């Protein structure tokens, strides 16, 4: 069975290999979709009503936040430390200024207050009280982790099936086996030919996420796209696509973004350092395989 819904400004497609009745299967799939709904309501920077945007109205006072926000934010902050700020969830205002400021369903645009210069050091999380403290006004962008987190939660809901694939606009987790009891066969999108695949891989109980500059171009700048280096405030163009395979989608999501930001050499050595498999593609379609993919 297969169902498709819109969440987080993308298409979320869930497919299961089921032995359950139609009703039972549908109910379980709907529970998996709820993960996306909950994470979106918690983490969206496009909706003033989201838990994130509500919490960010309080500068200088700790605010208790739910795990749907706390956990991906904590993961993003760890990544920021690990990459010395190349990956930085405080890039939200820069994204807003680059024209990524519009809610995909309502069309409403958002303009948030922010201090001029912000980094992840301006965010503090308290493990004991599960609270968030902003030292400056800023906009948090969890675009590189929240979707992955929702995929991981949804996967947890679908564990009882013999097989399932959750594909959230090109970031996916494949659990168990396909209809023919084989590993799931996954294609990696060709960067220039929309209907073509550049490589196929086989995975089971793993996620693959791809960061690329060929979708979501910057509405304001011809050279820009939706992946922005927080330090230079520019979009890197050394790679056109970076795919990473990991045990969790949140991990694959973050590392595909980071390797994309780092480019060929550094991206490759980063993936080797953390022992992940990946496929980096340059605009000239030079393909760099990492970790025996």
């Amino acid at each position, binding site marked *: 069975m297969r169902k498709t819904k819109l969440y987080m400004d993308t298409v979320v497609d869930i497919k299961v290999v089921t032995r359950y009745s139609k009703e039972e299967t549908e109910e379980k799939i709907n529970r998996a979709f709820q993960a996306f709904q909950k994470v979106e309501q918690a983490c969206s920077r496009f909706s003033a009503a989201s838990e994130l945007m509500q919490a960010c109205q309080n500068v200088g006072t700790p605010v208790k936040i739910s795990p749907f926000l706390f956990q991906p934010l904590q993961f993003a902050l760890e990544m920021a430390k690990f990459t010395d700020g190349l990956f930085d969830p405080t890039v939200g205002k820069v994204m807003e200024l680059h024209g990524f400021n519009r809610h*995909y369903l309502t069309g409403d645009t958002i303009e948030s207050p922010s201090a001029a210069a912000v980094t992840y050091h301006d965010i503090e999380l308290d493990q004991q009280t599960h609270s968030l403290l902003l030292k400056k006004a800023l906009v948090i962008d969890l675009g590189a982790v929240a979707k992955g987190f929702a995929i991981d939660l949804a996967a947890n809901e679908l564990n009882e099936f013999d097989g399932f*694939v959750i594909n959230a606009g090109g970031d996916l987790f494949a659990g168990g086996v396909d209809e023919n009891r084989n590993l799931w066969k996954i*294609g990696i999108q060709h960067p220039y030919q929309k209907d073509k695949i550049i490589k196929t891989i086989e995975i089971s109980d793993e996620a693959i996420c791809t960061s690329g500059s060929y*979708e979501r171009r910057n509405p304001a700048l011809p050279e820009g796209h939706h992946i922005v280096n927080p330090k230079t405030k520019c979009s890197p163009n050394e790679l056109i*696509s970076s795919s990473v395979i990991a045990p969790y989608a949140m991990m694959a999501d973050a590392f595909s973004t980071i390797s994309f930001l780092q480019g060929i050499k550094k991206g490759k050595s980063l993936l080797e350092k953390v022992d992940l498999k990946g496929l980096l593609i340059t605009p000239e379609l030079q393909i760099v395989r990492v970790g025996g993919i």
Partner: protein
Amino acid sequence: MKKVDKKWVLLCSTAIAAVYSAGYYTTESQAAVQPIQQHIVSNLQKNNDSLNGTGKKVVNSQKNKLYKDGTFTGSGWNRRGSIGVQVTIKNDKIKDVEISDFAMHYSESDVVGLPDEVLKKQNAQVMNVSGATYSTQAFQDAVQEALDQARNA
């Protein structure tokens, strides 16, 4: 599977566990829908308070809302054919957008193999594809059409 960096794996699994242990994602499906109902009730009360200040719990009247409650359909086109959406609205909030007839599929014939790669032929198996996150732009017309139908005159 290769050995991977334990720190990140641990952070991911702890993150999932934290959601469950905090009781935010209950195992009972009945309980799972409750927060939404509570949310609606509190919305109703809030609306009512702001309207007449009595604080009495009454059902929100239809004419105060921009949109009708219910599920509405819309359709549009993407490069592979027609797409349909079912938009569910409750209390002027979009609760759910389900896609029907979505053709973002790839088949074996769409595969551009690398020179050294030989692909096994399989009978028109539909493929799952990983790529840069594509946006919902193609669906916006369809969603708008559904919203237009739901709008109260």
